[in-house]
């Protein structure tokens, strides 16, 4: 049976939207209200980086036809962009402290990777769950007897 097209919704992907909501909620509500902690203030944005911006980048690549499919992000895409963000934020920008006001932090790199891998796992598992539901509904429609109780 041919697999259904894995339609990734890019910026409308639920995980991407959730990451945006979490970022905005933390930035404009939780942190100012004092309902945050040291870890969240330091690393939450880094963990949300890839789940939030990878779909945006992939959408741009899709529009330019560099990306040739609409499936969920592959592991290679996650790791490639993890490397890009790590190099830009931890190697390039800290060399210009008068402009970018940022310090290199190795734990930021870990946070980017953790967010990226968690997001990749979610995207892959989410697709598998939809595929199972599609398979069950398709079989049920074509062979109702297969679901009759014995």
């Amino acid at each position: 049976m041919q697999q259904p097209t894995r339609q990734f919704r890019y910026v409308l992907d639920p995980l991407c939207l959730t990451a945006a909501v979490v970022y905005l909620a933390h930035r404009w509500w939780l942190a100012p209200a004092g309902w945050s902690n040291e870890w969240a203030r330091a690393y939450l944005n880094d963990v949300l980086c890839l789940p939030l911006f990878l779909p945006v980048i992939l959408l741009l690549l899709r529009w330019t036809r560099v990306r040739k499919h609409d499936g969920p992000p592959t592991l290679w895409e996650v790791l490639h962009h993890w490397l890009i963000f790590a190099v830009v934020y931890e190697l390039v920008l800290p060399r210009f402290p008068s402009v970018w006001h940022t310090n290199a932090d190795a734990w930021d790199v870990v946070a980017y990777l953790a967010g990226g891998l968690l997001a990749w796992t979610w995207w892959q598992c989410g697709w598998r769950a939809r595929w199972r539901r599609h398979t069950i509904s398709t079989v049920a429609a074509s062979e109702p007897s297969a679901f009759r109780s014995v």
Partner: protein
Amino acid sequence: MKRYCKRCYASLANAVNERCAKCSRAFDAEDAKTYLTRPFPPLREIVTNFVVITIVGAMVAFVVALHQITGASGH
């Protein structure tokens, strides 16, 4: 000669009506330009895509960094 889909790199051995069995991309068995002979893109395309992806990703990263410069990110 083995043929592979130019879109999903699947083998075209099981193609039906000259369409890829996996992604339904059409190809012409008589026209070598419509399929690949290896299950991956040419090296030139790989390198080009890698460079373009890196540039686009870095541009987005810099845009986000600009957002942080303004102090609006809270980071």
